[in-house]
């Protein structure tokens, strides 16, 4: 093992400080006159526009009739590395649908937003949406249930799944 000793011959600190202040001053001037290229935001008032494909909070998609698309196959829960998805399946009155979730809960505080659930889903029932700013007060509930995941106001009545049962049956799949 070797000990590195730094021989700092330059005992004058003031030039260094002045150079640093100079850089700060340069940026201050630049930002004052060229606001568009400024790197920082006034965060709560100004928000950065992420891509619409940003993977944020989960969305459960719905069918054309507004019913939940999920078939409660539990592949997302199986694939989830954070073990944050909890589903309770039940028998659906419609024999063609057969199985649907009566409870679908995602614990957002455990979720690592890896997107594996989205990849595992065979019917495009779960997606990671662009919404990402979901702060909560102390004691708020971060376990999102079906109503929140599929029908929260921001989704305006639900996001429609690309693959519908009826289309699927028409295609003979």
């Amino acid at each position, binding site marked *: 093992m070797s000990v590195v000793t730094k021989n700092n011959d330059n005992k004058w600190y003031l030039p260094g400080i002045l150079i640093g202040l100079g850089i700060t001053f340069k940026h201050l001037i630049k930002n004052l006159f060229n606001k568009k290229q400024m790197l920082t935001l006034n965060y709560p008032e100004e928000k950065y526009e992420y891509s619409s494909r940003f993977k944020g909070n989960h969305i459960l998609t719905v069918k054309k009739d507004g019913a939940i698309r999920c078939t409660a196959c539990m592949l997302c829960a199986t694939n989830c590395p954070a073990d944050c998805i909890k589903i309770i399946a039940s028998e659906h009155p419609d024999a063609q649908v057969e199985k649907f979730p009566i409870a679908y809960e995602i614990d957002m505080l455990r979720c690592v937003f890896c997107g594996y659930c989205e990849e595992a889903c065979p019917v495009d029932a779960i997606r990671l949406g662009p919404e990402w700013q979901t702060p909560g007060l102390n004691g708020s509930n971060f376990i999102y249930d079906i109503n929140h995941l599929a029908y929260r106001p921001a989704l305006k009545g639900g996001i429609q799944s690309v693959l519908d049962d009826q289309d699927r049956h028409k295609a003979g*799949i």
Partner: protein
Amino acid sequence: MSPTTLIKCTINGVELEVAQGKTIIQAMTENAQRIAHYCWHPGLSIAGVCRLCMVEIEGNPRVQIACNTMVTDGMKINNTSAKVKDAVKWGLDFHLINHPLDCPVCDQAGECGLQDQYMEYGKYDPEMAEPKQRKRKVVDLGPTVVLDSERCILCSRCVRFTNEVSKTNELGIFSRGDHSEIGTHDGKPLDNKYSLNTVDICPVGALTSKDFRFKQRVWYLKDADTICNGCSTGCNVKVYFNKEGVFRVKPRFNEEVNGYWMCDEGRDTYKVVNKEVRLLKGQKFANGQWLPEMHAGTAVKDAYQSLMKAAASEIAVVLTGQHTVEEYEAILSNFQNTFKTKNIFHWVNNPEIFEEFDGLLLRGDKNPNTKGLLQILEKNGIKNPWKNLEDGLKSGKITHLVVFGPENIPVFPDLTAKVNLFTTAKNLIYFTAVNIQQLRDYSGNNTVTKIPLKTYVEKEGTFINFKGLAQKFKRATTLVSEALTGVEAAQLIAGHEIKVVGHPDNSLLTPASTRKDQVTLEHRKKNEFLFTRGRL
């Protein structure tokens, strides 16, 4: 030639000796050679309809089905050649013409033979131009079974089961061609005591049990071998459980006892072991009120203190045929040595139907270990008629009563009457796995202590079945960790300390059971952590 003559044959390059008269598929499955089979089941007759157990026999120009071909001397068989694989692949494609392949939704996924085969040989892009034939989806076949006709591959196993094993002939194949489907006749639902076996033998997810349907995905469940405690037949079973509890019971092959089957009644035994119905804590009723709940061990020690003060003739013990031989031995030796009492009584739940037998598996004696209890009582020279207990309680001679109550309470129709009788004792110590209504609502002048016991899936031991066959079984899981086994309870109540035995280090890492012909596919290996770990 006698039927036991051994003949030589070569299967996949391995020289084997098999008994004369065996079919190729029997020879292969008995020697851990993997071969796909859907219509063939070792407990049923041969149908030869699935055409997937193809093998190539040297000297024969074409591949043949293994299930309906006898092994002959010097036969050279293989099922790994390109020719066989090609035949199986196309056979599978025919099966999948109308099979919906909705594995994610299907309840069988994870334990489905067709799914395994599809993942191994699957022609993922079907070459059929026609749309799939659509059939009835959720067909109610009877009180226990639901049919999904689309998924059915018409292997006819369930039909043969009702013809040959349960002999009730409820199921049949109706219609022709690709319209054919399994069904029942009008007004004759699939309703027999063995109906759920059709679900077990269904190689796909066409038949599902109403009880287990959609409760759990099978890959969240672990299985462990045990003995059914539903009746004195002592069927060998597997229980499927996870950390939430036990979800189903399935039969395990044992030629001597149950063959491949078990009854529907035995499948319900898991319902009394789950936490919702169990007694979780010890509790004492004294001076007209229930005291706060206490640890099971504390409750037993408390009971020990009360028993110590009593004379030998005042103490009586009641046993049922629901516990293991080891527990009886511990109870008898501890009570005889510590308390010097011989007042040990056998609580017989339904003596009038004890000798009943339905010809297949179900017996009238609904206790798994009546024989074991009787043997031990006889060995110890104890023969107390039940009347002595009733008289003793009435006259006040017996004041301290220790009851090792039953865990499978649905088969104890006299439970209420008996518990009411027991509570007439001054000091009742009731060991029970299940939380009993009568005890919960008890209010009177006597002292009652209820102490949780472990159920048959949570302990190891021996059951002796109706014909005297002793069957050992191991602990499957622990649902109520605080509950005591009968052995622990007997030691504690006699004032002894119990040793806590830990797990051997690697017991949690090795899977409980592996089939000899377990599928070892690459895609499964990738997910191995899920297979060995489960969700526990």
